[in-house]
């Protein structure tokens, strides 16, 4: 197979990268890990004339904690780096587990957090758990930077709010009162499988009451989606088996799956129901796991 020819540039700074993206406009793509982009190019689905490589931008690699802000994950962190990161394992192991659920070891060593988000595949595994944890996206462009809720980052399959010349630089998981979070992915084999449906949840529980909750569905809508009606079932209420079951049913009804070669609408709705229940149960009982 051939990758269609392109011009390759590897800028030395984020600003330089943004400037190049503005300069080349629509005929340029960002090259982070390449595990998604190169496949699309080999399949003939994309033919960018320019690839702007982030490989020299070390500032985008780090995973660190910033007091007053929270955990910061650089867009160039690979999925294995996320999976193995001590800080994340301590604070939000659920994020590590979500990264772990992706693809296989080889892909996780080159695929990046930024790539997973920017490619905006509806079945992506990181967005649900990050949104459940109220993550923010710090976007850098030629005219400055902006930070938005990750929930607002996705516009549709393959589409994000990134404007020309903008690069997703970091994901911020803010310090938060949540007591547990969890992501469950249902794939058709145990490695190398896209999610047929994926559900992430986060809860803030005290005295058996669910003070706050987020339920985020993946692979069952054009973008990762909050199951707000399901959340309302639980928010502020005393946790009970019946309420969790209801939340599952409502999340299923809220979801907007399509039928494709991996699953039908009804089956996906069923998965949302089951996975929502299971995710909530785990988040409530086991912490950020």
């Amino acid at each position, binding site marked *: 197979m051939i990758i269609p020819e392109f011009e390759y540039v590897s800028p030395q700074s984020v600003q330089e990268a943004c400037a190049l993206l503005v300069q080349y406009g629509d005929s340029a793509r960002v090259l982070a890990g390449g595990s998604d982009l190169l496949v699309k190019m080999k399949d003939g689905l994309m033919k960018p004339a320019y690839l702007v490589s982030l490989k020299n931008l070390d500032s985008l690699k780090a995973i660190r904690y910033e007091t007053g802000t929270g955990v910061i994950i650089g867009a160039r962190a690979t999925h294995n780096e996320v999976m193995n990161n001590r800080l994340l394992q301590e604070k939000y192991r659920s994020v590590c587990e979500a990264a772990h659920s992706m693809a296989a070891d080889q892909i996780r060593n080159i695929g990046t957090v930024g790539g997973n988000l920017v490619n905006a595949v509806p079945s992506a595994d990181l967005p649900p758990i990050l949104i459940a944890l109220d993550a923010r996206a710090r976007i850098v462009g030629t005219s400055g930077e902006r930070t938005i809720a990750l929930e607002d980052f996705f516009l549709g399959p393959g589409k994000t709010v990134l404007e020309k010349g903008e690069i997703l630089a970091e994901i911020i998981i803010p310090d938060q009162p949540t007591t547990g979070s969890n992501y469950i992915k249902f794939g058709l*084999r145990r*490695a*190398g*499988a896209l999610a047929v449906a994926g559900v992430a949840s986060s809860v803030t529980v005290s005295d058996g009451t669910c003070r706050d909750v987020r339920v985020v569905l993946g692979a069952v809508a054009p973008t990762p989606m909050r199951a707000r009606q399901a959340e309302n079932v639980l928010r502020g209420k005393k946790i009970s088996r019946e309420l969790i079951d209801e939340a599952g049913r409502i999340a299923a009804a809220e979801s907007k799956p399509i039928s494709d*070669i991996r699953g039908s609408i009804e089956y996906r709705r069923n998965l949302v129901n089951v996975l929502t229940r299971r995710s909530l149960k785990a988040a409530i009982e086991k912490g950020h796991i």
Partner: protein
Amino acid sequence: MSEATTKEFSVIGKSVPKIDARDKVTGRAKYTGDLKVTGMLIGKILRSPHAHARILSIDTSKAEQLPGVEAVITAKDVPATFYGISPARYDETILAIEKVLQVGDKVAAVAALDEETAVKALSLIDVEYEVLPAVLDPLRAMDEDQPQIHPQYERNISVEIHQNFGDVEKAFQQSHLVRTDRFQGNRATHVPMEPHAAISKWENGKLTIWSSTQSPHYFQYHIARVFGLKMGDVRVIKPTVGGGFGGKLEPSAAEYVSAALAMKTGRPVKIVFDRKEVFFHNRGRHAQHIELTTGVTKEGKILGVHGKYIIDGGSYTSLGIASAYYAGAMLPLIYEFDHFKFDCFRVHTNLPSCAAQRGHGAPQPRFAFESQLDMIAKELGMDPIEIRKVNARRPNTMTLNDLKVNSCEFMACLEKAREISGWVGKKGKLPPGQGIGIGCGGFITGAGYPIYRTRLPHAAAIVKVSEQGDIATLYIGAVDIGQGSDTILAQMAAEAIGINYEDMRIVSADTETTPHDFGAYASRQTLMSGHAVKQAGEEVRRQIIELAAELLEASVADLDIDRRVIFVKGSPEKMLPFETVANEFFIRKGPLMGKGSYTPPKLGGKFKGAAVGTSPAYSFAAQISQVEVDEETGQVMVTNVWDVHDCGTVINPNLLHAQVEGALFMGMGEAMYEQVVFDDKGRPLNANLGEYRVPTALDVPQVISELVDSYEPAGPWGVKEVGEGATLPTMGSYANAIYDAIGVRLYDLPLTPEKVWRAIHERKKPS
């Protein structure tokens, strides 16, 4: 007990390391795509985007002008000879002439200095198509309103088979219970890890082809025929092959097109399929729609079976006629009954061509039969193993379709499987959502008749001992595609001669230097090539012993050879080293060689299609699997599989169990994960290894592979096959285990989580 198990062998029966393992673990083994030939060009094939279309025009002018392009060919530049591998069904051409019959059909080809140029050149070829309606549903392919794909196959019928043994109607009338059930099998494909590849070189009127092939002989035969060459002018060489499973049994576009381009350019041309092209070439599992009716007595004895099939053959015939016959021929093998009716339509569709895949036509019928037998057992209140024991084939019997079974330890397989799996304590007794089920199978050990009509022996071998007598080289046409035939045949040669495995060298699968062999398919080589090797080795042994008798002043009858020593039986101090005698032989008489060949006995009945299913010997197996079903998602976890095989004498235990594990794994993939799917225009939706899901290391169960004592008189040292047998029981075993776990029956492969969930859902609905 058999002769084989009581005698201690020196070389066979041992798990010696594979003869090519070191090369493979170091990266030294060269597969066809790894080879480079001086002056080599890269070939690429332009493939049809339409499932069914007339070719109106092809303009190659722009492609020809691209720098670096050495040749562009279309149908007019290559022989128009129709080819195929089923006699009387040669319906394929090197490049499509008038019509393309599937997405991915071959339309044109380019040879260029490098891959990138070749791919660019393809994009510069302009083809004008008239898109035609396509036949995409095999169940409707014969309907009046469907387009006809091939001019010669009316109503898209590839073959129509009606076989009738005994009187099924009467048998059903006499039955206590008659059941009819319908099953739908899935279109699956081999997925060898190595894609098809060939390098063709055309020099002085001679064609040399290095090819990832399962049969240099069939390749040589067909390629010579198509290009109008004498076979001696076509040399087919097999480098290391990365898996075949039936998909590399006939020349593909890789061979034909590279040969055509080599002839046109005068330079060697390499063509390596990318993964998508492997899916287009296919020649994999027919999806079979099966309606099965079985009648049994009150005691569960099978009286009669009627199978009605429609199987999806895809675009070209390939080996599909045999597949259709095998679908019926293997059904009466493992259980004894006298009345059988087999009605089968193999139909053409505008989808990739189907042919032989591990188990060849038999696994899906086996799935149907094993599932139905369990349903019958349930209705009769019988244990599934019990009903199988009532019907199990016995040794030295003839099936109703004239297949001669010599050794058969099927009963022992059933009993051992029951024991090692803990069946009695588990069946119906496991916690909800867990279940255990059994599936069985049996398969041929080589086909009784070759793929084309010929009187050639099926296998031949030459052994040449070195002048120093320190090593011996085995020349065989037999093909190692990963299953280890080079290794076990070297073991057999060493055993037959009386030397050590480490003394063997092997030259295999080169039509110019090695003797004839039909190749790796139908699990034939251990028995058939083995016979030839044994004969060749024994001829060397005879010559050595004759000379040694002279040198030791002993009589021939008193001498034996073991582990490189010729000695007088009973007086081992009267001995000579093998090298000494061999060296002396060479001095006195010249090369020390032995040769052997094997032709199976005349087998089979006189009815139409009787040849298919014939074999010198048959393997048998019982497979029990244990599953855990997550009823909310339908996900099935297969936790354990126990396979008990009757495969005769074992030449190399490690390699044998490795074959069982691999065959079982393929059965598992087809049972639960794999299906090739298309859109409504016949375009494949999952022609890649991300969405065509072969199980990963995380998906496979714990496997326990065991054997029963068995000796097959028709096989050298009592051997039988194992490479395909373990694929057959798996699907039925899983379906039966799932039923045991959750009380729902699935009729539709693959057994996906969604299907399981739906079946549970349906059952729970208030009626």
